[in-house]
């Protein structure tokens, strides 16, 4: 029996066990099971976990088209992605890579084709997962971003209140307070890491608020998120299996603790808040989610990663972009009312999540290529957002770009980003607060980028800030 089938057998059993055994103990049990399996089963029955060693990526012109592999997790880090995707868009916009470390996959690289795939959930399923590699064995999380309608709709509706307009109005002043405090405390006169001091800090505080997570331990949240997106077989990172299971158990123990506490409050007739867990507990479809461990973990991971990397890297990306296009910085200072439009342009220019994956549900001919039932299809938003056919001067960062909102970074169709308005609001507020305080933010040296197929992000960007003279 293949291990994935074994896991399918075990998941319902673990759901039954959930009511009796604490979730973190179940995760520890699964960890032990996976470790034992790796020890005792012959290699041919085991899923190969890829190891990625960085080597210089060749210029795309030196490769045959079929050898182009955009799943290389160093493509962003080495800044080769623009030339690679441009060649695919021009020569082979729906491209097949037959033997990547994640198995064979199709790349859809033009704007119009991406919109087609994203809209057609009847042809392209989001199941079993939206990353290039499958979930790690033993942690096959279930989350609505990777479910098709109608189950997707049920679960999304249950949680979307957390980022719904009613909540956003409340959150605006909270975010502004945090943004002001963070910016007032950056080390003026020193060269410092903008990623750590500003981008991570603001998004972490936001997440702690959304999860009603203890504020003094908030740094656990981005740490957990980075572990998830660092899983090699899923995203192309470097996190090892033991660390992953330990962190999963820790996160689940803490989050189920918060769940049980709020459940008791609810049972005692006390009012619940507008944080994520309170909303899940208030909805009939999700109030027992804790009895379904992989769904519980999945929803937590989805909102954690969704609220973390995306906004974090757009905050950093905006500063980076304005340094590469200094005339735009001047334009912004002359007319701060351009901020909302610039926010959309930052999200396009950065495209913090590079793609979403789908699985063809039937044979589909797309731009002349025949995609077979069951094939893996990646919609490369990062490429569509630079598609010359749809966007004028796509590599230019233009803060007053016309139709800047028409970017792909939030996806389109039923899985469109639920947190888009919250993300835009956070970016708008941080830039409003930046312009009140700083004349200039100068990027010092080259930023360090993340190793990933999925997250197009920064690990470090050193800056000097110049306060406005009073």
């Amino acid at each position: 029996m293949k291990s994935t089938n074994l896991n399918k057998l075990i998941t319902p059993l673990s759901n039954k066990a959930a009511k009796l055994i604490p979730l973190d103990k179940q995760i520890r049990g699964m960890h032990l099971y996976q470790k034992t399996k790796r020890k005792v089963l012959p290699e041919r029955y085991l899923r190969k976990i890829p190891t990625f060693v960085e080597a210089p990526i060749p210029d795309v012109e030196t490769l045959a088209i079929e050898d182009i592999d955009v799943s290389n997790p160093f493509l962003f880090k080495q800044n080769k992605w623009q030339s690679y995707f441009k060649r695919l868009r021009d020569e082979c916009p729906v491209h097949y890579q037959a033997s990547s470390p994640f198995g064979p996959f199709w790349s859809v690289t033009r704007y119009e084709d991406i919109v087609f795939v994203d809209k057609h959930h009847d042809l392209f399923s989001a199941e079993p997962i939206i990353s290039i590699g499958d979930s790690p064995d033993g942690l096959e999380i279930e989350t609505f971003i990777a479910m098709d309608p109608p189950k997707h709709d049920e679960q999304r509706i249950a949680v979307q209140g957390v980022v719904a307009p009613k909540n956003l109005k409340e959150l605006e002043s909270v975010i502004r307070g945090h943004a002001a405090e963070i910016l007032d405390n950056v080390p003026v006169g020193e060269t410092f890491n903008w990623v750590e001091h500003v981008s991570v800090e603001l998004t972490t505080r936001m997440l702690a608020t959304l999860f009603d997570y203890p504020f003094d331990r908030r740094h656990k949240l981005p740490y957990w998120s980075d572990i998830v997106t660092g899983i090699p077989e899923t995203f192309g990172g470097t996190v090892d299996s033991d660390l992953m299971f330990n962190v999963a158990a820790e996160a689940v123990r803490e989050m189920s603790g918060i769940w049980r506490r709020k459940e008791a409050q609810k049972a005692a007739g006390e009012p619940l808040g507008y944080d994520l867990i309170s909303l899940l507990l208030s909805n009939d479809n999700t109030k027992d989610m804790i009895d379904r461990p992989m769904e519980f973990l999945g929803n937590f991971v989805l909102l954690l990663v969704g609220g973390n990397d995306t906004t974090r890297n757009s905050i950093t990306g905006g500063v980076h972009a304005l340094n590469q296009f200094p005339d735009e910085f001047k334009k912004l200072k002359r007319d701060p009312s351009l901020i909302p439009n610039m926010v959309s342009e930052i999200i396009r220019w950065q495209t913090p999540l590079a793609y979403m994956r789908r699985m063809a549900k039937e044979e589909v001919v797309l731009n002349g290529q025949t995609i077979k039932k069951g094939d893996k299809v990646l919609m490369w938003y990062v490429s569509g957002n630079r598609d010359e056919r749809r966007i004028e001067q796509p590599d230019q960062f233009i803060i007053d770009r016309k139709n800047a909102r028409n970017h792909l970074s939030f996806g389109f169709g039923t899985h469109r980003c639920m947190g888009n308005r919250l993300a835009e609001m956070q970016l708008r507020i941080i830039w409003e607060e930046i312009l009140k305080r700083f004349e200039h933010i100068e990027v010092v040296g080259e930023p360090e980028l993340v190793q990933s197929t999925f997250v197009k992000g920064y690990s470090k960007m050193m800056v000097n800030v110049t306060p406005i003279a009073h």
Partner: protein
Amino acid sequence: MGHITFIEYDGTQHDVDLEAGKSLMQIAMDNGVPGVDADCGGECACGTCHVILEANWFPETGEVVDDEKQMLAMTPEQAETSRLACQVHTTNEMDGMVVRLPEFQM
């Protein structure tokens, strides 16, 4: 030429010319009506040109197909007479139509 009235959530009215043949979303965008985002540019793929029609006008705007229903289902402000403006193709019969905008597009 006829006209269409868009009413923002805060009550601000915008009377604009009805250019039959264009989508309702395009008419709103061409006239700079605030409160219509149209993030996907008219592909029925984002749900950010959500409008709420006065009940008597709703039957005039044609059938709501599954794609549109799906996108509308995701907005917390969905009403009985909700439409995506990009999917409403205007005709001269829509002269005088009143279109209300939700508090937020999302």
